[in-house]
């Protein structure tokens, strides 16, 4: 067939005056002709479209059946709206000190135990750790006055006391993810005797850089957080969700659906996709005062890394953290760039400081296949080396 590219340079489709070249010669010059769709290609694409449309009932069935949460868990402690879940397993416990996972307040915590093969919790459970996860619950209107002091000096203290009483241990290990990591760092700085090991996962502590769009958007010149909380009470879930989506609008609003269309016939892809979508759309409001304090004192004034942050009457000094720390950061994190997390290692007073910078995104650190294969076994090894056997 006399294709257009046979006539010469693709920039001049009619190729007047140029000798005709073979397809291999054209490919060798690293050019291509996007207009070279043949009727066969078109028919194949149409057939593919029809195949996918016939699979729609199956897709809907998978969407209905999707379940999140891979590891069975039971609540062992409740206070107000929060619960602490203990993960159950037939694997014998190898280590005495329990691991408490602290997630952010803006989403549900089951992202760390999303599906089989995409569960951070399962890694630690299968290694013999006694793992607990904090489910902060959904703040109601009456919770609008809960601030940093309530979450860190009240709730987190009670949680760690409850876990220590339940397990009969004097200390706990903490794994904090994102904002939960920041809160865990504050807690550890205020109560260093309680924490044996601290793992920070994509947790911001230094907001001096404006790499992340969130840091730009929350600048006090453009964002009046007082007014938002005054009108809404709590930081609304829909507002937070929109903000997160707009951090990567092309990826979240366009590319995702192209990828969905192309993989509609892959059942495993669909199960993972719908599980992820369940979590992404499960945003919850954040207690108003907590949101106000976090934005003002952390994002806008960057008080934590400067040693100026107060929780209640107490000054948070990161130098008080002397336990071993492992700082996990994501190279492609658009939400918490490495520059916001890495300064933690220099700010603490610990002598045993480790960091792993992993090629993944913010959520990919928890649910990515590569992270589950490569990163979490290393994190388990790190914690096992610093844990007391049963």
């Amino acid at each position: 067939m006399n294709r257009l590219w046979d006539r010469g340079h693709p920039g001049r489709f009619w190729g007047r005056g140029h000798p005709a070249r073979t397809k291999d010669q054209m490919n060798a010059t690293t050019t291509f002709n996007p207009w070279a769709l043949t009727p066969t290609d078109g028919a194949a694409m149409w057939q593919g479209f029809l195949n996918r449309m016939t699979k729609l009932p199956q897709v809907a069935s998978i969407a209905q059946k999707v379940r999140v949460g891979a590891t069975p868990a039971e609540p062992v402690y409740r206070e107000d709206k929060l619960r602490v879940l203990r993960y159950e397993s037939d694997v014998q416990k190898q280590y005495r000190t329990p691991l408490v996972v602290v997630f952010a307040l803006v989403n549900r915590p089951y992202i760390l135990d999303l599906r089989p093969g995409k569960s951070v919790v399962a890694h630690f459970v299968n290694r013999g750790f006694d793992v607990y996860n904090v489910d902060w619950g959904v703040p109601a209107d009456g919770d609008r006055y809960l601030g940093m002091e309530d979450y860190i000096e009240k709730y987190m203290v009670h949680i760690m006391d409850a876990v220590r009483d339940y397990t009969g241990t004097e200390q706990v290990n903490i794994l904090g993810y994102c904002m939960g990591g920041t809160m865990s760092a504050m807690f550890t700085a205020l109560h260093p005797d309680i924490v044996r090991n601290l793992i920070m996962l994509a947790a911001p502590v230094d907001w001096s850089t404006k790499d992340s769009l969130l840091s730009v958007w929350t600048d006090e010149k453009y964002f009046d957080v007082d007014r938002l909380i005054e009108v809404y009470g709590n930081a609304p879930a829909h507002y937070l969700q929109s903000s997160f989506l707009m951090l990567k609008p092309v990826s979240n609003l366009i590319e995702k659906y192209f990828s969905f269309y192309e993989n509609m016939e892959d059942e495993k892809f669909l199960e993972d996709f719908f599980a992820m979508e369940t979590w992404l759309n499960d945003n919850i409001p954040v207690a108003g005062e907590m949101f106000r304090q976090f934005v003002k004192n952390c994002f806008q004034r960057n008080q934590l890394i400067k040693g100026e942050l107060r929780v209640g009457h107490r000054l948070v000094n990161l130098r008080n953290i002397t336990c071993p720390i492992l700082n996990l950061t994501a190279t492609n994190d658009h939400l918490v760039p490495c520059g916001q997390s890495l300064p933690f290692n220099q700010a603490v007073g610990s002598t045993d400081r480790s960091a792993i910078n992993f090629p993944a995104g913010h959520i990919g650190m928890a649910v990515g296949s590569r992270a589950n294969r490569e990163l979490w076994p290393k994190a388990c090894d790190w914690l096992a080396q610093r844990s007391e056997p049963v």
Partner: protein
Amino acid sequence: MNGQDKGTNPMDPFTAFWSDWMAKMPGVNPPASSGTPDVLKQMRQAFFDAMAQYADQFMRSEQFLNATKQAMENALAFRQQIDQFLTQSVRNMQAPARADTDHILIVLRSMEERVLNRLEQLDQRVSELENEKAKSKRVAGKKQ
């Protein structure tokens, strides 16, 4: 493609985005044996990458930030008006409004803080008394 320059022609970022995408097109190099869909995917990906880059830069621009600030102020003002109207309507019907429950919550919270502070002080005093008692017992025991 810097959206931060003041006085930038609004067409320039778009022109830059389009030029960026077209510049990426020659880099798309399908293997000899691949079909057309791979070529289209690469084209598409190049387009999305350029669009994402443009969107990121636009969302950092003064233009965008001021626009979102204004939009939020308008939304909050509107919401506040609705709240005031609803509060007034509810009060006219002799029913409690959100502001009333907020007031109760604030009162409860202050009370809770006062009570907890007082309990803490009492706990501290009791601890001190117990320590003193234990100390005097030890001293008495040693004397004997």
